[in-house]
């Protein structure tokens, strides 16, 4: 492994030639940036495994109870899911463009793009909230007067055990809930980035927080890219 270019060099000369953002246990800004970036990628790897546990649960129960999962999937709103997917993709665009704005020193553009990202994020959560409320009204929330009677009635072609349908909805809420929690955290992170950008903290020489915040946001988008087909598109073919 040849990261010899990133070892700490003799630091006495470089020490007084850096901005305030260089922490003193690092020798150069470059080393600090590479450490932060590697750190964020490692964190995303842990997140992949964290969501992975839920994906494993989903996989096993979909394998066992395909019909019930199909019925549950048909009962959630594909248009809201698709629109939300589009909203997140737009937010990833604004995030990528905001990193570019930071790289090229365009502070005003950066601020506008960060605000747009936040708006898209909030829109996603709003639409999700509406979806969940719909599910609540239809008695599809496990533990809150759950009833699968309407699904059994609507899909006589599918073999539906009401208990097994509850498993689908438990997973639906667990997975979209965990994803939404990550979105909320992402919005918090980006509010912080917006504040710092407004204060002029980010320059072409130093904008690492924007880069690594962006990595996190894109990751949350990728989780949704998989959640959409797995939860919403299990079985939509004409019966």
């Amino acid at each position, binding site marked *: *492994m040849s990261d010899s270019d990133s070892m700490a060099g003799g630091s006495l000369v470089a020490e007084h030639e850096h901005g305030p953002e260089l922490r003193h246990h690092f020798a150069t800004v470059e080393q600090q940036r590479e450490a932060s970036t*590697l750190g964020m*990628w490692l964190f995303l790897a842990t997140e*992949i*495994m964290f969501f992975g546990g839920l*994906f494993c649960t989903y996989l*096993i129960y979909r394998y066992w109870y395909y019909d019930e999962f199909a019925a549950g999937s048909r009962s959630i709103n594909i248009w809201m899911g698709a629109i939300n997917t589009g909203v997140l993709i737009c937010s990833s665009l604004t995030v990528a463009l905001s990193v570019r704005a930071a790289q*090229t020193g365009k502070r005003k553009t950066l601020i506008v793009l960060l605000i747009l990202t936040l708006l898209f994020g909030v829109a996603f959560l709003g639409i999700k909230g509406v979806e969940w409320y719909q599910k609540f009204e239809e008695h599809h929330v496990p533990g809150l007067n759950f009833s699968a009677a309407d699904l059994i009635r609507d899909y006589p072609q599918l073999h539906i055990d009401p208990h097994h349908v509850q498993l689908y909805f438990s997973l639906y809420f667990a997975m979209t809930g965990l994803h939404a929690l990550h979105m909320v955290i992402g919005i918090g992170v980006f509010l912080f980035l917006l504040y710092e950008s407004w204060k002029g903290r980010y320059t072409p020489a130093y904008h690492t927080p924007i880069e690594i915040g962006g990595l996190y946001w894109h990751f949350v988008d990728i989780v949704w*890219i998989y959640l959409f087909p797995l939860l919403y598109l299990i079985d939509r073919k004409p019966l």
Partner: protein
Amino acid sequence: MSEHVISSKLYVGIWATLMVLTAATAGVAFLDLGPFNTVVALVIATCKALLVVLFFMHVKYTSERMTKVVIAAAIFFLLLLLGLSLADYTTRLVA
């Protein structure tokens, strides 16, 4: 992560591709392809994920080998969890 600055046009192009793929995956779901519905959906999702990783997350332009190692390792271990668990569930004699 390199300091390579990617053009806005490329970003918008990727965005457009992602939107088209989203519409495609939703549309294909209404067709009857038997077991291939799932396969197609996952293939499209993976293409979308790849576009985000390579372009929006700059992995295509980075000179850091560790980034790719970390991503590959995480995917490998995730597939291990899913695959070996399935090895049990698909070979049980009773459901």
